[in-house]
């Protein structure tokens, strides 16, 4: 009989709290969750993620539209949206993923390692072939969708439990 280390993954409510805290601190604004199933976006999207490796292995992903990413970046840098440059978008959205991922890492295993953030500016057709989604929460901010999801690697040592 195999013995698996079960780790406790964040619930939807906990994930919403983590993300809204980031917004309150660094964008000085309220972020509202969206609970209704929205139709899948067919437009361009930007994805930022950090990997967590340890007792539980997977990644924390933040997805938004180019417009949403520009607004978040402008808010964090305190610039006008029109002044925002591509490098600043990658920096800001990567840092959002890093902050949320760092908090999640603390919940799934103290000894886990957190990667540096990775950002794909045009991720319309990007998929995660070796992972499946275990948590997904959605928000809307200034009319743009923001999705935060947690993906578990299929060969992760410990099965995540919610």
């Amino acid at each position, binding site marked *: 009989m195999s013995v698996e280390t079960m780790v406790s993954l964040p619930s939807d409510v906990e994930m919403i709290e983590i993300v809204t*805290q*980031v917004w*309150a*601190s*660094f964008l000085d604004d309220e972020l509202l969750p969206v609970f209704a199933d929205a139709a899948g976006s067919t437009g361009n999207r930007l994805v930022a993620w950090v990997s967590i490796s340890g007792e539980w292995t997977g990644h924390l992903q933040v997805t938004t539209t180019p417009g949403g990413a520009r607004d978040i*970046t402008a808010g*964090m*840098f*305190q610039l006008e949206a029109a002044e925002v440059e591509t490098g*600043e978008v990658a*920096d*800001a959205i*990567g*840092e959002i993923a*890093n*902050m*949320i*991922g*760092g*908090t999640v*890492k*603390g919940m799934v295993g*103290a*000894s886990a390692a*957190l990667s*540096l953030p990775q950002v794909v500016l045009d991720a319309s057709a990007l998929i995660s072939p070796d992972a499946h989604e275990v948590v997904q929460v959605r928000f809307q901010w200034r009319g743009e969708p923001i999705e935060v999801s947690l993906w578990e690697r299929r060969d992760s040592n410990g099965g995540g439990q919610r």
Partner: protein
Amino acid sequence: MRVLVADDSTVMRRIVVRTLRQAGIDFDEVLEAADGRQAYEAALADGPDLVLSDWNMPEMTGIESLRAIRAAGSDVLFGFVTSEGSDEMRAEAEAAGASFLITKPFTAETFRDALEPFVD
């Protein structure tokens, strides 16, 4: 007071400096480092009074940077500003010579509470 802010994210360095101002911490010069090696070099070469450093950075991590700074004989006031704040990391930071660890996201109040015992 001269403050060295080390973080591989440009926006986070800006936010840290903005939060220091909001917290009413008096400083007259900000130095910046974009990775742990730059932080180590600047801490020794530029003589800051305070180092605020991220943990997870390229080249050298924040904890490696701190250990190298202490090994070189510097006793500069050093605190972490990081997205990860487990008990293990706090203990590791303290053992290496850090005075405090602030977790992201933070507020001006968090900064004030962490820094007040150490700065005027």
